[in-house]
């Protein structure tokens, strides 16, 4: 029974993992913000002004701040404006691949591939709209 269920719904692992990962990141961000507030409380208790960098950090969420930090190379991927065409192409190609897999019914999982193709295609089109309707015009 478990085997049948797994064979039918293995693709559910991906969206579920994304939800769990998002919740995990939010939890860690929340804990980091709590630690930051504790630190600022320590400054307040001693009657001193916290450094400007600390307060600036508090203004933004952790990930937003990472994106603002342009000077230092990071290992993680940054969603900069120049990257949006990259995303259009990437998700377009991925969607095409999964659409092909759905049409040819590779591994007998055509229906699952259809859903994946639609999701990736939606991201591709949405990113394309974002690029074309950007306030500052298309980047290319």
């Amino acid at each position, binding site marked *: 029974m478990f085997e049948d269920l797994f064979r039918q719904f293995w693709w559910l692992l991906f969206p579920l993992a994304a939800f769990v990962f998002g919740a995990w990141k939010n939890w860690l961000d929340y804990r980091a913000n709590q630690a930051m507030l504790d630190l600022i409380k320590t400054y307040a208790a001693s009657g001193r002004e916290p450094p400007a960098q*600390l307060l600036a950090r508090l203004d933004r969420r952790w990930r937003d701040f990472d994106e603002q930090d342009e000077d230092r190379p990071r290992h993680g991927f940054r969603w900069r404006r120049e990257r949006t065409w990259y995303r259009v192409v990437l998700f377009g190609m991925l969607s095409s691949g999964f659409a092909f897999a759905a049409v040819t019914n590779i591994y007998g999982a055509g229906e699952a591939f259809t859903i994946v193709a639609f999701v990736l295609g939606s991201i591709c089109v949405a990113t394309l709209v974002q690029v074309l309707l950007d306030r500052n015009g298309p980047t290319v």
Partner: protein
Amino acid sequence: MAYDLFRDFWWLLFPLSFMVLGAFRAWLTYRARREVMTVLRDLAAKGQEPPAALLAQLNR
């Protein structure tokens, strides 16, 4: 049964490993930030100014 499942879905190990690694990396980043903040708090409690390099660590 387990053998058949593994033979059909062995490739799932790769994306699942990436997910686990990503979660582990996020946890390590959080730990590093927390350590920096602990040091900053100790310095603040002692009334010392934190070095600029230490503050810059918060942006890691």
